């Protein structure tokens, strides 16, 4: 009887392939409800992890930038105070000889000359070793000192008038304020942070280099067709976009550093093509679909095993990949009135967070829908160069809007072990809203 079992199997096998059924609408509603309850939480948790990672990265980057710039600012401040300390003391006398000198002149005997700390409270001028940059409260303290400490009799009348006259004290105060208290004069290298949110439309492309060891066309085919040309002919870039935030640190009036996080999505359409069977790394046979970003092995569900030389037709395909970019750039500031031009150049660390590919494969008996979220031969990480021109217009003391043309180019390929090495690039034009603090 066993000789008829293959017939039984065949009858039921054909019936199973031919049978079609659809679930009821209520069943889809149940599935949707269950997904809303359970998977929505998992979905949130998934992106919560990304948010945490991005925030941590941003904080670490901010801290590193702050540390670097703080050291630079301290060095510049020290140099400035060493070079200008005597002049700042001289400014206390409103363009006249220094207070110490005046006191010394009033006492012809050097041994009788008194230091400034004998006339004024010691905390007014601080110690000799302190940087002689007046604090914002110095002017106020000087007024108080003039009020509660009578001007010594040893000072000549002209000088005494300066100190005893209230208006002169105010003049000193104004002078101190003008010279020292003005934030721009306290430290001309005062750093500024700028936080910018931006969105831009991209014109993406890529440069393809043949990878000879894996270039099947050039190594096996007699006509030595160029894989790069074939891929270029098949693929078309579609509209892509970028969005993200920039954090800028202005170190002085001219130079600054810039970083942030950029999220980009690149879309590519691929025309229908015929794909051929090849041996996979595990030794089995499958159809290989090659594209610029990588390749996939497809094993359609069919009864006949895949043989060398078999081919299958694919419908038009859609391919997208998303990238998270960490830029590190140096900026130059050109300011005129409300407009600031800030060209920046630097390098970027890019993580390909997701690749999406979908198409349909057509066999004689059925159409197989192929949907993938990961490609073979595609790297997770690549290094790139980037530059932009931030054309910023101040709309307030802290807020500004920008037009942001930019350019990005991959320095390392996004593919490995593919028939081509792919270096994506993009031009973009976007807008940004910035807040300076």
């Amino acid at each position, binding site marked *: 009887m066993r000789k008829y079992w293959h017939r*039984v199997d065949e009858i039921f096998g054909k019936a199973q392939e031919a049978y079609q059924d659809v679930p009821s609408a209520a069943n889809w509603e149940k599935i949707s409800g269950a997904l809303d309850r359970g998977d929505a939480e998992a979905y949130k948790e998934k992106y919560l992890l990304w948010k945490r990672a991005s925030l941590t990265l941003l904080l670490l980057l901010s801290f590193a930038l702050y540390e670097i710039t703080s050291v630079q600012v301290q060095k510049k401040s020290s140099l400035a105070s060493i070079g200008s300390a005597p002049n700042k003391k001289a400014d206390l006398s409103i363009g006249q000889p220094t207070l110490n000198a005046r006191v010394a002149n009033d006492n012809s005997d050097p041994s009788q000359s008194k230091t400034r700390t004998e006339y004024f409270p010691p905390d007014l001028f601080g110690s000799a070793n302190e940087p002689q940059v007046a604090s914002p409260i110095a002017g106020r303290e000087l007024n108080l000192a003039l009020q509660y400490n009578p001007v010594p009799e040893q000072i000549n009348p002209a000088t005494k008038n300066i100190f005893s006259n209230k208006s002169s004290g105010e003049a000193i105060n104004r002078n101190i304020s003008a010279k020292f208290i003005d934030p721009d004069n306290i430290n001309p290298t005062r750093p500024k942070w700028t936080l910018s949110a931006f969105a831009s439309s991209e014109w993406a492309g890529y440069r393809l280099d043949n990878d000879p060891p894996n270039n099947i066309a050039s190594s096996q085919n007699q006509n030595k067709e160029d894989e790069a040309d074939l891929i270029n002919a098949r693929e078309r870039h579609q509209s892509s976009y970028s969005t993200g935030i920039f954090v800028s640190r202005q170190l002085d009036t001219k130079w600054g550093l810039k970083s942030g996080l950029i999220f980009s999505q690149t879309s590519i359409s691929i025309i229908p093509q015929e794909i051929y069977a090849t041996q996979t790394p595990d030794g089995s046979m499958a159809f290989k679909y090659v594209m610029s970003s990588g390749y996939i092995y497809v*094993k359609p569900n069919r009864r006949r095993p895949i043989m060398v030389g078999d081919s299958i037709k694919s419908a038009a395909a859609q391919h997208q990949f998303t990238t998270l970019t960490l830029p590190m750039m140096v900026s130059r500031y050109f300011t005129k009135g409300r407009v600031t031009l800030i060209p920046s150049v630097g390098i970027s660390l890019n993580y390909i967070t997701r690749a999406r590919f979908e198409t349909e494969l057509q066999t004689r008996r059925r159409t197989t829908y192929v949907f993938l979220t990961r490609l073979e031969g595609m790297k997770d990480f690549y290094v790139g160069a980037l530059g932009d021109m931030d054309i910023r217009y101040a709309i307030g003391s802290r807020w500004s809007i920008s037009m942001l043309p930019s350019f990005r180019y991959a320095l390392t390929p996004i593919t490995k072990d593919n028939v081509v090495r792919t270096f994506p690039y993009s031009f973009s034009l976007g807008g940004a809203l910035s807040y300076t603090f």
Partner: protein
Amino acid sequence: MMAVCMWYAHNREEAEEILQDGFLRIFKYVHTFNRQGSFEAWIRSIMVSAALTKYRNKSARMWVVMDPEIDEDELFEEPIFASSYDEKELLKLVQKLPPMYRLVFNLYVFEGYKHKQIASLLDISEGTSKSNLHDARKILQRSIVVREQIAQIRIKTI
């Protein structure tokens, strides 16, 4: 995928339960899809897995013996197969099989698993798997042959 579930279930209600469970698994584990093979094949394997889970939980009721009403002599006669069958009728025949027979038959015939794999999936011995497949085939063959004979008798009477 509903069609796949129908072949593994006893009726439509059970098939919809399997489909729901399968789709929840798909959405939960879609990130683990390893790109080996088509996405459709991966979804199908998830559905089969969901069906196995459902019936594995009812394993205590799965163990049955050969239908005693089957006439063994009839099975040794040369069967007559029709040139074509209605797949809905064949589906009903498979659905009427005892759960363990149905699972073993489906896994062997539709999914192409070997007895060793089936034994591992269903936590049974290879011998049991072979025995169940044998019994399932006998039941199904008897059903389709008898139906064909009835059909032929009807044609003759007309």
